[in-house]
């Protein structure tokens, strides 16, 4: 700090705590102490308060001791002369500010004032994306009940989104977040700043205003999509809503770091060391912004301002500089856009964010922040696949001399002749070669097409293989994006990400109808072959599994053991992926585990897996069973796709999807359950898993397998219907899926038992699970 900052921050903190106290007193009078308070869809109550004080706030009355605590953290402002030290005092006052801010937002929720109303505003994307039109599944969160909807800003990020970003946060694809507070010099600058951050896959959290104008207004006016899908989340137009960024940070530590509520110092240090975030203050910095920034510095998050403020360059509480001033007009640059670019570069430098920028030669912005971008019908130039046309992608390996690296060929007409919002057939054929390349890696690489193509702004990719569905927006087409650019993207990204196994990449884009049909047939033959190969690839046919410690940067004691029949719990890494990853980086997070002696084939114990579990978990886990939920189940970090949990009364298990926010028969929602399942702890009866493990023959096979599933979130039942039908056939009970209850008809144990009885579910007659 400096005395200037300390004075303002402490003054701001005192004011905000007083404001919170007044609001609370009013609310207590009007609503009563027992009125429930909560943020939507989180198991972490008011997360900053929970993390920092260990107090679970459930009612308005619970906020009283919190605000008392916040007041005790306050200090008087430094004397004009002969001052006593102020750094520690300012940081404490900053923390008081955060606690008060979260209390205020909670009270606003009680009054229906959060998420902040914003007429005419529509969030980009709900919590999970299944269709370009968002029409195939109902929006999981009704208006006013959670993340946005029409006419409101986002408010706090829910647990579902936190977890679904989990894998990207932990594997480094998403380096961190920028809490942007205030208003940029111009709309053009606002857009540029956000684009620059998106290009680096940095989450943008937007809040605050200067004289009533917020960067949120600026971006809305420029038609920038805001929401989870674009990594650009509008919290609110006041500074207080910036608390949601710190609630997100606190929950990262609780969710992925295995830390417990009240371990404030550990949570803050976790963020300093692992979460690469910073505050970017645009425009005038007032007392409250200084106060909130002081709170953020506790997390190790530095502050960068585009106005003149005192700089604090010594390090320690943050890893690099604490407060940096980069007056916008004094930034060197040809124009404001270049100045905005430099400003973002400075932010990244100050926080030490590790950013990998892909240099892909296409006429639109490129980066994984654009992966979730939606191209709506109104913005659509042309689509390939979907209801009216057929698109496929096929990657195969060839000999080195058969591939011309960098060759991109478009065979057939381009889309210039297609009417607006029209469609055409498309085939993307990729031929790769490399000394380390193996045929088994073909599907691994092929699945990357989804991520690589999606990275281009204005392009949307859904699905894979011959159900691929690609859209090009008007904006992208206007900038000159054409079919050849798919090839450019793929060529660049395969070299960049898979350079260790791929030496040459050649891409052919096929629109010519005859050739399209020919290639599609070849592709389908290959898919069939791969399906068989995958079906044949069972745990007993290999002599090594793979470890996955990708998320140990976030969950230090968790380790996944990935086998051919059990993919990683995040759903992102199967055995072949791990094998490929090991080839690419032999010292990386995926290491082969030599199985050695099999100790128990039913429960899935090997000498090698047990030995590895001890080492990988740093001694926390002693043994791990591959096929049982009841005995030494595998641990989880926090980014699992589903939770499987024992329902003792039903002699079976329920499967809850990450996307399901409703109540389960266990009396807990996914968010609450996740707290039990995550953090690298072994809890018999509870497991976080990848959803494709559900269809594996080895799915809790030691405990009776898929027949044990008595309840399942409907979203899973619907989206994986075909796969489950096949499993039911395999298990010898073709109608099993219909015997499994879901939240539409069963939400309590009593209802569940009645349902199982009525539907004659096999679990009832199976031997006891424990």
């Amino acid at each position, binding site marked *: 700090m400096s005395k200037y900052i300390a004075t303002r921050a402490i003054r701001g903190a005192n004011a905000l705590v007083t404001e919170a106290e007044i609001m609370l007193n009013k609310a207590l009078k009007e609503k009563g102490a027992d009125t429930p308070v909560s943020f939507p869809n989180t198991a972490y109550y008011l997360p900053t308060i929970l993390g920092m004080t260990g107090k679970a706030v459930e009612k308005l009355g619970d906020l009283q001791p919190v605000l008392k605590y916040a007041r005790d953290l306050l200090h008087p402002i430094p004397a004009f002369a002969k001052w006593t030290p102020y*750094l520690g005092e300012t940081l404490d006052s900053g923390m008081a500010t955060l606690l008060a801010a979260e209390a205020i937002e909670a009270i606003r929720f009680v009054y229906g004032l959060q998420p902040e109303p914003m007429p005419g505003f529509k969030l980009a994307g709900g919590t999970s994306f299944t269709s370009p039109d968002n029409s195939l599944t109902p929006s999981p969160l009704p208006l006013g009940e959670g993340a946005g909807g029409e006419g409101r800003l986002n408010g706090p990020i829910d647990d579902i989104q936190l977890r679904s970003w989990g894998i990207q946060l932990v594997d480094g694809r998403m380096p961190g977040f920028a809490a942007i507070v205030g208003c940029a010099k111009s709309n053009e600058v606002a857009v540029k700043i956000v684009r620059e951050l998106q290009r680096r896959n940095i989450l943008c959290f937007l809040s605050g205003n200067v004289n009533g104008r917020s960067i949120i207004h600026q971006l809305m006016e420029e038609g920038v999509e805001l929401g989870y899908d674009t990594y650009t989340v509008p919290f609110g137009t006041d500074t207080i809503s910036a608390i949601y960024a710190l609630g997100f940070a606190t929950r990262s530590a609780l969710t992925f770091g295995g830390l417990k509520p009240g371990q404030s110092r550990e949570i803050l240090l976790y963020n300093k060391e692992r979460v690469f975030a910073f505050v970017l203050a645009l425009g005038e910095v007032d007392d409250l912004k200084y106060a909130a920034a002081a709170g953020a510095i506790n997390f190790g998050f530095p502050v960068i301002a585009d106005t003149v403020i005192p700089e604090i360059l010594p390090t320690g509480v943050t890893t690099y500089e604490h407060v940096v001033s980069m007056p916008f007009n004094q930034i060197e640059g040809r124009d404001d856009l270049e100045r905005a670019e430099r400003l973002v570069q400075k932010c990244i430098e100050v926080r030490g964010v590790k950013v990998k920028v892909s240099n892909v030669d296409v006429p639109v912005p490129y980066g994984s922040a654009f992966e979730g971008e939606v191209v709506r019908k109104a913005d659509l130039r042309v689509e390939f696949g979907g209801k009216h046309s057929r698109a496929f992608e096929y990657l195969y390996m060839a000999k080195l001399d058969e591939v011309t690296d960098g060759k991109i060929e478009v065979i057939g007409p381009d889309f210039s002749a297609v009417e607006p919002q029209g469609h055409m057939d498309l085939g993307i054929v990729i031929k790769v070669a490399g000394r380390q390349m193996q045929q088994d890696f073909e599907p691994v690489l092929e699945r990357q097409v989804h991520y690589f193509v999606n990275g281009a702004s204005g392009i949307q990719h859904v699905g894979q293989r011959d159900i691929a569905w690609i859209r090009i927006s008007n904006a992208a087409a206007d900038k000159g994006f054409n079919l050849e650019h798919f090839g450019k993207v793929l060529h660049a990204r395969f070299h960049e990400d898979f350079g260790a196994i791929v030496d040459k990449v050649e891409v052919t884009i096929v629109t010519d109808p005859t050739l399209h049909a020919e290639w599609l047939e070849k592709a389908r033959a290959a898919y069939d072959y791969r399906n068989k190969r995958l079906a044949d690839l069972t745990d007993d046919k290999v002599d090594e599994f793979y470890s996955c410690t990708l998320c140990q940067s976030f969950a230090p004691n968790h380790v996944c053991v990935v086998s051919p029949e059990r993919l990683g719990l995040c759903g992102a890494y199967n055995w072949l992926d791990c094998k490929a990853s090991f080839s690419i980086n032999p010292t990386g997070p995926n290491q082969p585990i030599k199985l050695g002696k099999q100790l128990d084939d039913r429960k899935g114990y090997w000498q090698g897996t047990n030995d590895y579990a001890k080492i990988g978990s740093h001694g926390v886990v002693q043994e791990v069973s591959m096929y049982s939920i009841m005995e030494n189940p595998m641990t989880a970090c926090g980014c699992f796709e589903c939770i499987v949990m024992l329902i003792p009364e039903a002699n079976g298990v329920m499967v809850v999807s990450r996307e399901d926010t409703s109540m389960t028969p266990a009396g807990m929602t996914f968010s609450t359950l996740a707290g039990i399942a995550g953090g690298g702890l072994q809890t018999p009866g509870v497991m976080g898993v990848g959803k494709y493990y559900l269809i594996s023959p080895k799915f809790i096979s030691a405990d009776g397998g898929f027949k044990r599933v008595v309840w399942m979130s409907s979203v899973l039942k619907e989206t994986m219907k075909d796969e489950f039908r096949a499993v039911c056939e395999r298990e010898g009970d073709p109608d099993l899926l219909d015997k499994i209850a879901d939240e539409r008809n069963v939400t309590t144990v009593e209802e569940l038992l009645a349902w199982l009885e009525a539907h004659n579910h096999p679990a009832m007659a199976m031997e006891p699970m424990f």
Partner: protein
Amino acid sequence: MPKKREIKEYSTDPAAQEMLIRADELGIGTAFTRADHMVPCNIGGAGMCCKQCGMGPCRLTKSGETGVCGATLDTIQARNLTRAIAAGGAAHSDHGRDMAFLLKAAANGEAEGYSIRDVAKLRIVASKYGIKIEGRAPEEIANDLAELYISQFGQQRGEVVPAIRAPKKRQQLWREQKVWPRGVDREVVEALHRTHIGDDQDPAHILNHAIRTALADGWGGSMIATDVSDILFGTPAPILGQANLGVIKEDMVNVVVHGHEPSLSEMIVAASQDPEIIEYARAAGANGVNLSGICCTANEILMRQGIPAAGNFLHQELAIMTGAVEAMVVDVQCIMQALVGLAQNFHTKIITTSPKVKITGATHIEFDEHKALTIAKQILKTAIDNFKSRETAKVRIPKIKEDVIPGFSHEYINYMLGGSYRASFRPLNDAIMSGRIRGVAAIVGCNNPRSSQDYLHNTVVKELLKQDVLVVQTGCGAIAAGKLGLMLGEAGLSEVGSGLREICETVGIPPVLHMGSCVDNTRILTVLTQMVEDGGLGDDIDQIPAVGLAPEWMSEKALAIATYCVASGAYVIFGGASPVSGMPDRVNDSDLVLKYISEGWEKLYGGKLEFIPDPQKMIEAALAHIDKKRAALGLPAWEKDKFGRSGDARMRELEALPLEVKREAIYGATAD
């Protein structure tokens, strides 16, 4: 006849100069003039006189000469030095023992007026020793801790426990060298035994025990004293106070507390705020009781209560010469016998209070912790009763005083660098590693009338600050810097190098941190240990770019402090004369011991003790050592003005602009 010095050569402190002129007018002698008359014995001063037995004293002045028993020059020097260290350690440790007994009494509700004021510290300290704290009342914990601490003094075998708070590597070293103290008293007794006629006569072997004896002080008795003082009276945190003779007030009953122990002075502070006493003072025609301190008693109540310091060691006589002091209340250590005679020229009563200290001619009101508050009131009433005897014509109070911000306990330093949630030494270590702070200097110790008062202290401090060296101070050295205004945040902006300025401004600290009394040098050991533990500055204290200085030392306690700092890995530079200097120009090899405590100890402990009278050379040696340690750690070499870009200066300039220009200058073009 020795040369009498000019008054401005006696002291650099203008308040002191004013009083010394007054002393001249009154024809009163002081330590300053007595120092002129009393030429130090050059043989004893060089450590070459042995008066250990009745066969001597043997004064060795020629090469190869031995004492009657055959003791060589280096044996005699080693014995003399070790005895001084034992005496110094005994003084600190006996203070610590009394504090431990006081804690015991307070825990059992037998100490009138005392309570456990810092329960948090009690719990932290107790838990370091495995004393159960969960679910126990503070008194129960305090009782156990007091028992443990009391036992450290008489312990015969094993290891004194506070030393487990040293860095792991250092503990290992002490065990290897067999110098981990067994019990505080045992090491002092053994030091006296070994140096008796006809015992230990291998200089290195004797000095090895000096190390052990000193460690029993620094990581034993002194550390206990600091811990208990904090537990009973509160761990210091920054507070605004004042220093120098100007704090004495003409319209009030002035009571000056002088000495070292906080047990009595804290009670006098409490009693002085008692309505009964205030009323008693009013009735006597005064506007209340004005307390101030001298020496380390001053430090104790300054850093905890903000009670002003009238001055350091050499101010004790000068305070009386203001003619406005009704009573000077003394306990132990550094109290000049001359006070009684001097006071007879004024109305001032000298009140001795310790059962261990009586001075012929002084009023003795013996302190007893069981009736502390009652006795404190009795003392104050005695002073108030004396107010009527003040001779207004004799009152001369210098109008000189300075504000100070003391109170930098290691606990507060930890807090100030990160607040409640992120408290650590990381920012300090980072600042040293980056080179904003070149290194740390602990400048401690006494005043000595043989040099100009405060001159060596402040010359060294001022120059090191300009060289980006962060200074921490205790004892009389601390008061010297305080009187000069160096213990204010403002000094952190104007009196320092640009890198240090950034740190001072970031944290809001003065560039010179007041860490307490001389017994509190253990706080510096704790800070150094925490710096090691926070990482980046090596794995033991001897690797830290830090240095200890006592430019104006005079007491045996200073030698004990120096030795435990050396044994902890520090380079310690003393100003003034060396007690083991020998006469190398006349007597061959008479500087063997001097070399041993430097090079010899450095090999063993990584720290060394050297005597450098010239302040410029002292500064050069300190900086060279700091730079050497920086280089050894692989840190970038310190560069002048490399840092200093951040802070409020630019903001202050812009804020001063007219409104219409200001907005544009700070915020740029307003947002659309």
